[in-house]
């Protein structure tokens, strides 16, 4: 008769054990909690969640992923455990809204904290923080006044001096989309093609990598999100890179600097609606907004929150107040434009 050998026993029990192991993860769903699907890196939001838990006793469960979150949310449908979605850009917010995956939220607290240009017209999504897409230039090698606007980056006299990350990255795509909104498709495409001609190297690396490239003499000018400067200053190694450049807020004489938002939205079938609302209100509050400003160096959507010292030192600047949804709507076009001018080649 068939007697299971040790190897057979092993191979039989393992799947069973793994099933038990699966079941044990159900334990998460208990007590007072709120579930977050996050496009944002956990370390940038965990301090705020910890603070929220201390205040309210509500546990915040997080899963972080960049690709496929929308599809996951969609497939899970009414049974989705997610209450809240956090994103790093306007693009993703408008995608989930267009897919009908989030709901309208009416809260006096949120409405009074977040100005109307920083939230969705239907109050489906809300900005939490905003970031400036700034230009940084080498302190030693670029004279003051050489670059003052995004348009200047495309000036042929800067040939071989400019570094950016991939033209396909969400932040670059949003900048190109804003050029489309302001200058039309043709104007924007000319700009992008000229900018491509000025690149010192094929785009590679992240925003910090571009600053590093200036420090190393690969290029003299780069486009980055402002808070990377702030984060680099507090890292002993990266401070050297940051010290090699100075910050320029582009287009101060006309429309202002291109801004993007990180944001939040409540899912359509949020199982913990009350708790999700509490968390959203908290994230727009003085306490959380202050943490975003001090820990991450971001600009707050709520006015009057003290910013980080280094950020204050860069001074006040004029922000581009163009409708964020218009930028989101031009994303696909901007991405194709990067293909057409072969930006990443």
């Amino acid at each position, binding site marked *: 008769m068939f007697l299971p050998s040790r190897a057979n026993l092993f191979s039989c029990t393992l799947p069973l054990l793994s099933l038990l192991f699966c079941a044990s993860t159900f334990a998460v769903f208990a007590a007072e909690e709120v579930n977050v699907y996050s496009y944002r890196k956990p370390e940038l939001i965990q301090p705020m969640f910890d603070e929220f838990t201390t205040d309210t006793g509500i546990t915040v469960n997080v899963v*972080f992923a960049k*690709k496929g979150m929308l599809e996951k949310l969609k*497939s*899970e449908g009414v049974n989705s*455990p997610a209450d809240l979605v956090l994103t790093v850009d306007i693009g993703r917010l408008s*995608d989930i809204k267009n897919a009908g995956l989030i709901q309208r939220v009416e809260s006096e607290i949120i409405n009074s904290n977040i100005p109307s240009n920083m939230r969705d017209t239907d109050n489906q999504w809300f900005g939490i923080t905003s970031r400036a897409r700034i230009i940084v230039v080498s302190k030693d090698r670029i004279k003051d006044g050489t670059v003052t606007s995004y348009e200047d980056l495309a000036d042929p006299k800067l040939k071989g001096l400019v570094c950016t990350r991939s033209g396909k990255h969400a932040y670059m795509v949003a900048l190109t989309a804003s050029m489309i909104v302001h200058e039309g498709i043709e104007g924007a495409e000319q700009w992008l093609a000229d900018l491509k001609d000025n690149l010192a190297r094929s*785009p590679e690396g992240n925003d910090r990598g571009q600053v590093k490239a200036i420090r*190393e003499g690969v290029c003299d000018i780069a486009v980055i999100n402002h808070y990377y400067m702030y984060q680099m200053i507090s890292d002993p190694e990266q401070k050297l890179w940051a010290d090699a450049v100075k910050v320029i807020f582009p287009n101060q004489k006309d429309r202002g600097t291109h801004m993007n938002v990180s944001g939040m939205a409540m899912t359509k079938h949020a199982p913990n609606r009350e708790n999700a609302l509490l968390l959203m209100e908290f994230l727009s509050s003085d306490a959380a907004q202050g943490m975003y400003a001090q820990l991450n160096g971001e600009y707050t959507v709520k006015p009057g929150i003290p910013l980080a010292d280094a950020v204050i030192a860069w001074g006040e600047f004029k922000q581009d107040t163009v409708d964020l949804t218009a930028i989101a709507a031009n994303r696909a076009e901007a991405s194709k434009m990067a293909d057409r001018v072969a930006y990443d080649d």
Partner: protein
Amino acid sequence: MIGSSNSASFSSGIGPWRAGTGFVVLVTTLPVLAIVWLAFFPTENIWPHLVQTSLPRYVSNTIILMLGVGVSVFLTGVSTAYLVSNYSFPLQKYFEWLLLLPLAVPAYVIAYLYTDLLEYAGPVQQALRSMFGWELARDYWFPNIRSMGGAIMLMGLVLYPYVYLMARASFLEQSPHLYDVSRLMGKSRLKTFLFVSLPIARPAIAVGVALALMETMNDFGTVDFFAVHTLTAGLFDVWLNMNNLGGAAQIALTMLSFVLILLGLEYVGRRRAGFYQKSGRFSKKEKIKLSGGWKWAAFLVCFLPVFAGFIIPTSMLIEYSIRYFEQSWTPQFRTYVFNSLSVSLAAAAICSIVAITISYTRRLENKRWIRTGSKIASLGYAVPGAVLAVGVVIPLANFDNLIDGIFRQNFGFSTGLIFSGTTFALIITYVIRFLAISIGNVESSFSKVSPSIDMASRTLGHPPFRSLRLFQLPLIKGGVFTAALIVFVDCMKELPATLLLRPFNFDTLATHVYLFASDEMIERSALGALVIVISGLIPVVVLSKTISYSQTLTRPESATQTDSIN
């Protein structure tokens, strides 16, 4: 008449195997079917734009990368495997398993590490600058590691063990008589290698190269970091920037057709090799002693891949781990280790069982649907992880919602997301993703077992399961074990599907490493990467033990018996 009555008695007891295989093929096919389904609903037709702009570049980059990696893994894997299995030279005994080690280093990790090493701010260029008095990067030329060449080199370094593993097993199993005959007939060593050993090993080598190339095809982390724009890059661009999942699915299917070609090549390679071993595995071959310059040349050929693919990255990881140990060694970290180990072990075990089921059913009755099914079940390996994850979550979540609907309607309570919201989703995705490895290995092991063994066993009245347990399993267990180990190591490294499908607050070592590595701060999570590498070492060492052990064994009873039945 005789033939038909024979087949009737032969097919008794096959029913459960058919059913099992059918079920498995169905489940593993679902994600690919989901992707096919998605491909019918693009938000717009993406091809005119792509063909006019980036597609030629995506395709040519993909082909260059695959050719480059293919040549690299073939040369490295075959040459090292041949050397260590036929010759004796300094450290040859150790190289047998040392050569496997780079397999444990995830491609994205080695990419970050080599960038640290070779970039402007890295120690190599620093030394050059201080030696020659250069200052800025524009003062001198240095090859950019973040390039096509760099990607080919680094992926070749961590993927060649697939070829090495298969080729070595095959070289060891070759009867020494063939070699002796060839030499006696006056053929040189080189000619013997080229015209005797290599052709016999071809099916195994083809499996290894196909696996390495599929891994190359689905890689995103490395090519993204190195700014090499392959079809995968195009896929994610269409999906995420143009918000066109259907268009992305179409690109995924285009990539799958590349893979079908690969699988076809592998099949052709295997079909033409119609010879069986009955006991070759256990015959011991005398190694030829190399002398003088040859000795050291052989040493170098084996040392370089180990040095560049394992010693350099691991020593960097160790150095970083020590520097950041206090920040890294936390209670959460130990949970990540546990999570990684348990899901990977479970997936490896299930993969083996599934692969045996499919391959054995195919052996019982070599029907077309089973052959096709096993090919389709292998496709998951070539799909980029994030796409496969979406392919899994769509049917799984819908199935969950169906069950939930039934329970809500009939019993008044909700079951929620039983499968898609738990580690079940993760494990099943790993299984679908890495089944190709198990099937490839197990089928190749089965193909070496003479069909006369099955016939004899069935003639003696053993039903399929007992026949498998008594006769085939002991003969193929090496292959099964090898496959399970590779799957385990691959699961430990898997990232994109893990990110999307894990339950709340569930991190593995790979996701932990990714958080820092994606910010180009791999040193902060070096300990995690190091543990991935070390956990990959354990199976590698175990594996090498079993390989050399089986070599020194005299022929076991069962093998002798099956021989005499013949």
